[in-house]
């Protein structure tokens, strides 16, 4: 009980891991590209959570700076990913990731 | 109890920063009630001012000079049937107005009405404000999408594209103002709303006049972007009546529609507050350098009282002008009573102990009120931009201008620090 009530870095890490797993499941199982991209955002957020938690643990700010870089990265990834999605939808009129199979020969 | 209140009144911290939860609650209540009243007043004022610009009278029936019209309006809205389109996405449709209202109101957590008159002072104040106010885009997009109808969808896409693109220019303008806060001995700026005003106090200069004309241009960019942010004329494409009927809230009615309405006006007040805080010295009184000294301080602290007395005088003047007909008796008496109440408030505000504490709030509200008048004025004079022109303005005019101002401000600030404070 004591360990439940005292929030340590490990708690944040477990939360991050859970979020990461949710993201992984989403990426691996969903067909809808939009939701796959959102799951990737979940993964990135889990990473961010860990970074900030470690930054809190060591009392430094490097983790937070890294988190900001990861957010920047996520923005770039979302922009390009959604751009690809739009191009894909225009050609195939679907957003199912199974049908991205032009190279599967 | 009184001692408690008195002890608070002379504290130098915001209740949030002091961790005083009771006063935080009181502040939240006071600010949100004040906001609701301000929005009601604003609807009345907008209709009246616009009417007089357009050679008509505006509301005249409900109460003297339509003063009770907002109450009648809100009653009507609350009693109206709440219609949900059959094909709408019920949950999203239901939650969208609340998101918008929440975003609009949460912003007021960090707005400083005076050095201690804010719910809390956040280290990331301005960032928080921009972030939370950008959340209202989500509500708008959801409202448009959930209605499952073409016009709301186009309206939502338009307004969200507009808000997202003008946020960029807005952010650049804000950053150039924040840069100016770092012109002190330590060379560190601040994002705290109170800190920004205090920086203007310390530098004896409102940021609108700083590095003339850089501050002015940044302010101009912000002033344009904030109109676009709040979807008001001449950037009111999202609700362009002649094109999209009513934009994203076409399918909404009754109470939920009134939430959108409320949030629109609250957002107007919020962005005006940002502009006032960043460039117009927040709660600081005008002419701090020209007319300085305790005598002038005292003189300027009389302004709140004078303003209320002026309003009271206007009420009495119009009471005298009321038609002398038995049908108008109640209205005449009502107006006179209103005038008496305003006059009494004005008299109370002349007590030095009160006026010294209230003048911050007065100056802040007066500046915000000026912006509100501008909003109405724009609506009365300008035609509406077309969508592509609006985007062009945002990306091709305001954004480069904002970048230029930012770079110049940084350069000038650096020069000043290197040359004058080596």
């Amino acid at each position, binding site marked *: 009980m004591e360990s439940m009530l005292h929030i340590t870095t490990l708690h944040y890490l477990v939360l991050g891991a859970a979020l990461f797993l949710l993201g992984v499941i989403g990426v691996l199982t969903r067909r809808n590209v939009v939701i796959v991209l959102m799951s990737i955002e979940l993964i990135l957020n889990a990473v961010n959570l860990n970074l900030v938690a470690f930054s809190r643990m060591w009392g430094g700010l490097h983790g937070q700076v890294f988190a900001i870089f990861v957010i920047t990265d996520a923005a770039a990834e979302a922009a390009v990913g959604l751009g690809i999605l739009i191009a894909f939808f225009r050609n195939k009129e679907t957003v199912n990731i199974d049908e991205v199979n032009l190279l599967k020969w | 109890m009184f001692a408690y209140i008195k002890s608070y009144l002379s504290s130098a911290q915001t209740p949030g920063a002091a961790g005083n939860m009771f006063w935080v609650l009181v502040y939240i209540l006071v600010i949100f009630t004040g906001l609701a009243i301000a929005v009601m007043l604003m609807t009345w004022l907008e209709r009246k001012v616009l009417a007089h610009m357009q050679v008509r009278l505006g509301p005249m029936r409900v109460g003297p000079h339509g003063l009770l019209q907002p109450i009648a309006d809100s009653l009507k809205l609350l009693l109206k049937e709440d219609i949900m389109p059959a094909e709408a996405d019920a949950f999203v449709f239901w939650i969208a107005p609340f998101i918008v209202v929440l975003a609009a109101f949460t912003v007021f957590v960090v707005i400083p009405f005076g050095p201690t008159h804010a719910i809390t002072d956040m280290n990331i104040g301005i960032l928080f404000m921009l972030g939370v106010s950008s959340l209202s885009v989500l509500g708008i997009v959801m409202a448009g999408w959930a209605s499952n109808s073409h016009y709301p969808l186009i309206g939502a896409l338009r307004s969200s594209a507009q808000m997202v693109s003008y946020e960029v220019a807005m952010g650049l303008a804000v950053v150039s103002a924040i840069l100016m806060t770092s012109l002190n001995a330590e060379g560190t700026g601040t994002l705290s709303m109170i800190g920004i005003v205090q920086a203007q106090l310390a530098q004896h200069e409102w940021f609108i006049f700083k590095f003339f004309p850089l501050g002015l241009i940044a302010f101009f960019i912000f002033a344009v972007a904030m109109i676009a942010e709040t979807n008001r004329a001449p950037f009111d494409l999202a609700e362009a*009546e*002649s094109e999209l009927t009513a934009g994203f809230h076409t399918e909404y009615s009754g109470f939920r529609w009134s939430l959108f309405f409320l949030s629109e006006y609250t957002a107007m007040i919020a962005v005006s507050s940002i502009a006032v805080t960043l460039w117009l010295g927040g709660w600081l009184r005008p002419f701090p350098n020209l007319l300085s000294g305790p005598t002038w301080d005292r003189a300027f602290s009389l302004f709140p009282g004078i303003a209320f007395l002026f309003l009271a005088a206007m009420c009495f003047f119009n009471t005298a002008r009321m038609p002398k007909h038995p049908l108008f008796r109640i209205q005449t008496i009502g107006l006179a009573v209103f005038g008496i109440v305003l006059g009494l408030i004005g008299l109370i505000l002349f007590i030095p102990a009160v006026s010294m504490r209230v003048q911050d709030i007065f100056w802040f509200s007066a500046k915000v009120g000026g912006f509100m008048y501008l909003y109405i004025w724009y609506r009365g*004079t300008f035609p509406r931009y*077309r*969508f592509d*022109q609006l985007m062009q303005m945002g990306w091709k005019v305001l954004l480069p201008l904002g970048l230029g101002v930012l770079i110049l401000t940084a350069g000038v600030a650096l020069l000043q620090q290197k040359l004058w404070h080596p």
Partner: protein
Amino acid sequence: MTDPNTLSHLDLETPEKPFLDANELVINMGPQHPATHGVLRVILRLDGEKVLGLECVIGYLHRGVEKIGENRTYTMFNPYVDRMDYVAAVSNGLGYCETVEKLLNVEAPPRAQYIRVILTELNRIASHQLWLGTHALDIGAITPLFYTFRDREEILKIFEKYCGARLTTHAFRIGGLQYETYAGFEKDVKNFLAFFRPKIDEYEELLTTNRIWLERTKNVGRISGEDCIALGVTGPVLRASGVKWDLRKAQPYANYKNFDFDIPTGQNGDTYDRYLVRMAEMRQSVRIVEQAIDSIPEGPIIAKIPKVMKPAVGEVYHSIEAPKGELGYFIVSDGSTQPYRVRVRPPSFVNLQALDLMCRGQLVADVIAVIGTLDIVLGEVDR
């Protein structure tokens, strides 16, 4: 007008193809849309916000005016024409009366003609004022509407004093006028002219040099003079495209030849030019009224016409320059008291055809502006 060679380059049949059909959005604008000026229904085919093509669905206000004409005597039908273009009822009446007069081979006495010109030109001003107000409202400027309505009121007051009605005036009778002008008519009109001249400047001050107005109207809804002629478009729309064609000059009716006025024309044929042309037309109308009011001759106000009108067998077409364009009446008489066939050539109906051409490749917001600038009245389109 149906010459296929002239129309071929317009290609109104096949709309532009979108990049992919998936992106095409079909939007139904109207009939209950605030900006379609009544019950016009426009089916828009959009690519994003770009208009690929559009189709007007009309007839929501159809009342069978032409058919009614076949079942009424010539005199009885006169009030009905007011209900077509109810914004410019006086012009409608003038056109109808002159057509029947042509059929009967009578001519209204000069005094009647002068008063007709004065009232018609006042009506033209009123119609343009209404157009300006609603057009500006469509583009988002709400204030001009109230200014124009305030000033239009003065014209309507003159109408009311003259014939008792404000909108559907039924001001003229076949052969002249029914009522002599009231005492003080000339003074009222002169007062109005003095009052109105600065008001035009006031409207122009609000809009003409307004940046947003310029951006919204310049190069929007362009149409060339040739296309106008090919489609039969008339009125200010035609003149804004640079074609100097005004029936008041081209085939003078009602003694317009006695008055000195200019035909304002534009160059680009865009919405802004149409705006300028109409503003200039208001000034020209003021000029005409000024000349007319000073020289109203004395004399009878109605020609000698039989109590029961039985025009000789034959047909006649007569057209006038209504505020919106060429308003023509074609009447076939079989010698009885009722016309055998009445056909109206309404300017709004014909001008509306150009909407598709003018809106192609523009944005949705421009469609609104173009509908506004065409100045249609659905009562006249649907009849």
